[in-house]
């Protein structure tokens, strides 16, 4: 199977000579032609930490397929008459149902603002069950491990360990087109992450409610705290000592620089009437909405936000915990979508989910274990909504996609999912292989869920 690695790509794009002459030069210094941009676009990644049991989020609602699901899931199956029915727009597509707590998502699906990408996950190349067992394909390593599969989802480096994530690489690729931006392209409201890690740009990490200001600093030159800020800044700038001290100082420097600009802007954000749930995710998405509201003040053209919710590792008490987990996602995303409509930016903002992995179809008694492929949700005005993308597997134990216990081999790769979003974001087709390095191994470069 042919794989297009970075070196191959640079050769095909005529950059190999530059690479050879300047070892260590990173890709974004040679390629990355996007921008300047005359419109605004934002991607919002909602990461469900722990591995969302997404085969209870989206359930087949046709008799034979539902029965296969119910037989596999036993005590963890959602009753068929509890499902919230959805009917995809395309003729001939079977009916599905949503978890009963996903009322908000059902509404967005029916209005054409939401779609599902089904049985998607990290792959190096297309993989069948026979190939999985006879070892004739390259697999992502450490399948079914939390942090490894999180890294594979967010880095898309397949079987290679990676120091950059696909959002980070997008930010690097467009950086020459967004030099006016007052804030980093990548912003996280849930801590440092590999997804936004890059070679040449640095993600800005703020709190769930936005950035904080430094208590001991003032911008009034007559205040001693103005001098204090300047002195503090000079200490941070001194590049004293070891790699650890400099790494720490880098963070302090970015924090000082961003605190005034971003807090100043967000404090001037107009009130948003959409009502967000009082949850960690609701708070984060409300902050994202407020930042989008002040995008012009911050001269933002392209933004990637990282927000997250935890607790999805449902080994235990799944029937008790899942309604709150999925309902929390539905309520927060629905409120956020309403806020983007209110801001007049519904078509400029696309929200999408990622998670460690799907979970086993079989039960461990009262929960599920780590698996592989799963379903993901995409929401926004630019989404070709009311559709399912990718093949939905037969949810039968020992079915054609099951490698054991109801662990589904993904039928669509996370690279294809990411590339479809990246293309909408403004990454040129020839550069999608940098964002999604194994994309060349898959026939379909664009899954079609975004309006071109």
């Amino acid at each position: 199977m042919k794989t297009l690695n970075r070196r191959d790509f640079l050769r095909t794009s005529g950059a190999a000579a530059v690479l050879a002459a300047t070892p260590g030069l990173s890709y974004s210094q040679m390629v990355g032609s996007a921008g300047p941009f005359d419109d605004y676009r934002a991607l919002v990644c909602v990461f469900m930490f722990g591995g969302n049991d997404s085969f209870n989020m989206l359930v087949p609602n046709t008799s034979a397929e539902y029965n296969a699901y119910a037989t596999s899931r036993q005590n963890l199956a959602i009753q068929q008459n509890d499902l919230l029915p959805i009917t995809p727009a395309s003729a001939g597509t079977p009916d599905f149902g949503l978890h009963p707590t996903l009322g908000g998502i059902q509404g967005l699906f029916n209005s054409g603002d939401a779609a599902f990408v089904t049985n998607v996950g990290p792959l190096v190349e297309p993989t069948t069950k026979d190939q999985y067992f006879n070892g004739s394909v390259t697999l992502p390593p450490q399948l079914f491990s939390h942090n490894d599969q999180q890294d594979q989802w967010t880095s898309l480096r397949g079987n290679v360990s990676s120091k950059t994530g696909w959002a980070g690489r997008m930010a690097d690729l467009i950086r020459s087109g967004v030099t006016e931006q007052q804030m980093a392209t990548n912003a996280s409201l849930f801590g440092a992450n590999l997804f936004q890690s890059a070679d040449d740009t640095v993600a800005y990490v703020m709190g769930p409610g936005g950035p904080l200001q430094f208590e001991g600093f003032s911008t009034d030159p007559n205040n001693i705290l103005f001098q204090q800020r300047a002195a503090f800044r000079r200490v941070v700038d001194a590049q004293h000592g070891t790699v650890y001290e400099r790494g720490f100082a880098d963070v302090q420097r970015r924090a000082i620089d961003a605190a005034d600009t971003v807090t100043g802007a967000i404090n001037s954000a107009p009130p948003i009437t959409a009502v967000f749930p009082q949850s960690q995710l609701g708070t984060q998405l409300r902050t994202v909405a407020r930042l989008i509201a002040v995008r012009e003040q911050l001269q933002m053209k392209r933004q990637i936000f990282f927000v997250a919710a935890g607790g999805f590792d449902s080994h235990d008490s799944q029937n008790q915990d899942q309604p709150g987990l999925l309902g929390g996602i539905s309520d927060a995303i629905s409120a956020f979508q309403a806020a983007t409509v209110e801001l007049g930016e519904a078509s400029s903002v696309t929200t999408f989910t990622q998670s460690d992995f799907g979970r086993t179809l079989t039960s461990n008694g009262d929960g599920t274990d780590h698996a592989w492929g799963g379903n993901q949700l995409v929401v926004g005005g630019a989404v070709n909504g009311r559709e399912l993308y990718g093949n939905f597997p037969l949810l039968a134990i020992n079915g054609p996609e099951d490698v054991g216990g109801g662990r589904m081999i993904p039928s669509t790769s996370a690279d294809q999912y990411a590339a479809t979003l990246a293309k909408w974001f403004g990454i040129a087709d020839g550069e999608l292989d940098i964002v999604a390095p194994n994309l060349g191994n898959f026939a379909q470069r664009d899954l079609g869920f975004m309006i071109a």
Partner: protein
Amino acid sequence: MLGLAGCGGGGGGPTPPPPPPPPAPVTKTEAFQFLNQGSFGATEAEAQSVIALRQDEWIDRQLQEPPSLQLPHLQALPPPQFQFQLHADRVDIWYRNSLHGEDQLRQRVAFALSEIMVVSQLGALGNLPFAVADYYDVLAENAFGNYRDLLEEVTLHPAMGVYLSMLGNEKPDPVLNIRPDENYAREIMQLFSIGLVELNLDGSQKLDAQGQAIPTYDQEIIEGFAHVYTGWTFAGAPSFRQARPNQSNQVLPMQLYPGFHDTGSKKLLGGVELAAGQSGEQDLRDALDNIFNHPNVGPFIAIRLIQRLVTSNPSPGYVRRVAEVFNNNGAGVRGDLGAVVKTILLDPEAHSSMPMEIDGKLKEPLLRLTQLWKAYNATSSSGRFPLNASYILFGQGPLQSPSVFNFFSPFFAPPGEIRDSSLVAPELEIATEYQNTLFTNYMFYQVFALNQTNDTLEEDDVYINFEEEMAIAGNIDALIDMVANKLLAGEMSSTLRQEITGMLERIPETDTAVRAAETIYFVVTSPEYAYQR
């Protein structure tokens, strides 16, 4: 010298070797460095103790100190309205023990272990504070014991049983497509003992003929262990499925209910297969022996403990020296954690007089806080340290991790020169712009508001005392020297000294409290204070 003498240079009779030269006195810098590795922060008084005893004697005495415990403190309190409220008391006693326990080294190693074998109050243990406190006590009690015993106590502890869902895990029911829970099976190996790939003794990855890392286990082995860990729940329950936690059973080892244990054969590591029909207890002992004897455990635990105590990027030689002691403490015993800790702290790489710029590590936020608090006698008028929100304020708190993956990853490498040099800096994962600003603001508040000069303190406000600084605050150089002595072993960069001097010159000489606070604030927020050399 000895080598030459051994050649037998002639003459009559063996020449006694000359007595070794007396070791150079321990310097204050060395004592501070050592105490920041082996305690919750160096103080001048403790540095004098290390200078007098020397490091190895200090360690030997610490190895004998009995553990300061948490559970008795919780048990002595009046019952709260809601169980979860006792977590605040658990965090309180953690601060008290960490700041004032005579068993500083034991507590520091227990803290390190609590970041390797993680359970957390955030989640299913929210209503089981006694279990969480007792779990920490188990770590403290076994900090210098044998790793095999620790592994068994951790495995059978109901806190771990609840957290990683081994508690209540049943044998398979093929009719209902129910198979054993794989949670504990996976994480005990990935995170507590051997890791994902095979290691050489020096911690480097073993590679196969194609240059690829070699996985330590596959799904079949995970399933084998998952079947081992079936049949255990709270002790003394009326029946397996009716087991519910109460104040006593949440601190007792889990009990086997044989009817719920899988009795089939089980595939383990290294081609070992447990025979069918063994008892659940026997299966567990054999399985933990199987993990314990995997050659990865020595280098794996060596790297994890060195990273928590001494440096983010130990050399292969350092890892090998520690792993060799794990494998054999010199008396033929494998897994002697006391010997491992002593080897880690006495290794030349832990106290190089000429540190390379990759030596050392960042102090995690709690250690930056405890060092300040110890140096400035932090207390509250109630005697309490009510910081149950530590995980929010500082991005971490005792047994308050967001997941079993700890607050930060041992592999975290921030973009820039650290990543470009293939180094790691785990603590930097939670030193984000947000968390650093929160911490900087907390320090501002701590130093300027929560100090002994404030007569409006609430009884639970933890305040510091800088009376000594105020007494000499008229002399800027002397004031800076005093703070540098207490927090930086007397060594301060010229930039930091210059900037503090500039600020102090703006503050009237008579504002002694402001001058003292300003000096401390600049030091405890500086990159050089955040660094543990």
